[in-house]
């Protein structure tokens, strides 16, 4: 398993500063977000070749890109329009491909029957249309994919190139038991976001409710050899850099 730095630690930093922070924290791999963070690769003053060059110059590997959600809706008019939404995701996927990626992360829409149908149809449509990629589907509170039951309803309907993005922070926020979730979906887990929390409050790794040792053991036993993304948000117990270093060292100690 390979450890990856997430820019959620400092969402206001631009890409050059995130690159510096990633290296200073001892990571060689970085994940980016299409939205929500200023380090997005679609910043006005950055072309895609510039992003690639900056990462290469820093010796960092871009491992993953979190693209827009598959909501089935036309965001600027709040109307149902799956085709429109898929054009947005398709564009994001090709952005990721241009950055050298073959796997992108996304989430679903609202907790409605319409969003469920759109998620299934949309994921299968995208994977059929773009044969050289796979998609990781992330969980989040109040999202179409929040609970184990949500995934158990959706995953059998999807292409085998659709995988589970297990996000521990969002599971804790939703009060969804982590180990039953991970055990039931172990053979479909394609990506892991690690964040420790007390309830919905992020805390230093190893001091919250996340059963790190159990989860890492389960992933090893399941032959998961993918990425472990160290997600730190709203750090208020330390400066960002020492917090990131401490989190990395904690997980490295468990992974071995």
């Amino acid at each position, binding site marked *: 398993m390979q450890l990856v730095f997430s820019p959620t630690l400092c969402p206001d930093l631009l890409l050059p500063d995130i690159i510096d922070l990633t290296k200073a924290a001892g990571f060689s791999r970085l994940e980016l977000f299409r939205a929500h963070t200023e380090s997005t690769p*679609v910043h*006005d*003053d*950055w*072309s*895609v070749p510039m992003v690639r060059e900056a990462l290469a110059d820093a010796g960092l590997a871009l491992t993953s890109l979190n693209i827009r959600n598959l909501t089935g809706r036309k965001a600027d008019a709040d109307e149902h329009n799956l085709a429109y939404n898929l054009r947005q995701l398709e*564009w994001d996927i090709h952005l990721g491909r241009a950055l050298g990626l073959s796997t992108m992360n996304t989430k679903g829409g609202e907790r409605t029957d319409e969003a469920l149908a759109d998620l299934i149809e949309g994921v299968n449509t995208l994977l059929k249309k773009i044969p050289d990629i796979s998609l990781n589907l992330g969980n989040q509170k109040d999202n179409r994919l929040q609970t184990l039951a949500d995934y158990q309803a959706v995953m059998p309907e999807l292409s085998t190139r659709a995988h589970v993005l297990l996000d521990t922070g969002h599971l804790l926020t939703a009060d969804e038991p982590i180990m039953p979730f991970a055990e039931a979906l172990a053979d479909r887990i394609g990506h892991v976001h690690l964040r420790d929390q007390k309830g919905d409050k992020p805390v230093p790794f190893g001091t919250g409710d996340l059963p790190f040792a159990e989860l890492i053991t389960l992933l090893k036993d399941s032959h998961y050899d993918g990425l472990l993304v160290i997600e730190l948000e709203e750090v208020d117990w330390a400066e960002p850099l020492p917090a990131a270093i401490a989190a990395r060292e904690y997980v490295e100690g468990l992974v071995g």
Partner: protein
Amino acid sequence: MPHLTPEQKNDFKENGCLIIRNALAPEQIQAAQDTLWAGIEANRNDPETWVEAGPRSPASTNDPAIRATVHESPLFAMMEEMVGKDLLNPGSAGPAFVYPSKDKNWSLPARGHLDGYYTPTNGVAEGTVGYMTMNVTIYVEDIDAKGGCFTYWPGSHRVAHEYFKTHSLLSVQGGVSSDLYPEGKFPEGQQFVGKAGDAIFWHGQLFHSGSKNVNRNIRMALIGRFSRKDSNDIRFETNDDQWATWEGIN
């Protein structure tokens, strides 16, 4: 036997556009006009009824007479001569009409735009940019100056290319030129004045605009936008050489 001379290809490279006179045969023009007039909500024999008539697109892109203007004329083959054989999606051209205006005040458009950019009403998905390699505007009626001419900014494709080397494709809001040219620095556009059957090729990143029609004739134009089959693999690339992927031009 090639349709284009090296000089014509060089003109396209330099200006981002190339005018082709008499691209359509008389019978192709006639067939296209007949098809288009069947969809126009006006009397073909009474120009008074053409003023501010409609619709903007009175025939389907897939109508045989419309499709023939690209695929049964030399136009598609000419595009392939520049881009490369079998590299373009076949596509077609669709009607884009400008009807005569009641208001006879006319001025040259002050600014142009790039196609493929999102606005709340144009159908382009927010946060995406359509990718066009090469476009063509074909007249199927005689269009004089001030008659709603396709208006273009020669050389602006080179400005766009330089800009996108250091900026996101999404940084140009609505595709308008103000993001690429400083205020007051946008050059004067040129009207494509032509006869029925004339055409102009224009680079996918050439600034252009419609214009007001204060003349008698309907601006009967067909506009085709053509993308490479491998667009999804190259749309985010800004090679140092703008023509690196153009087999007939580089």
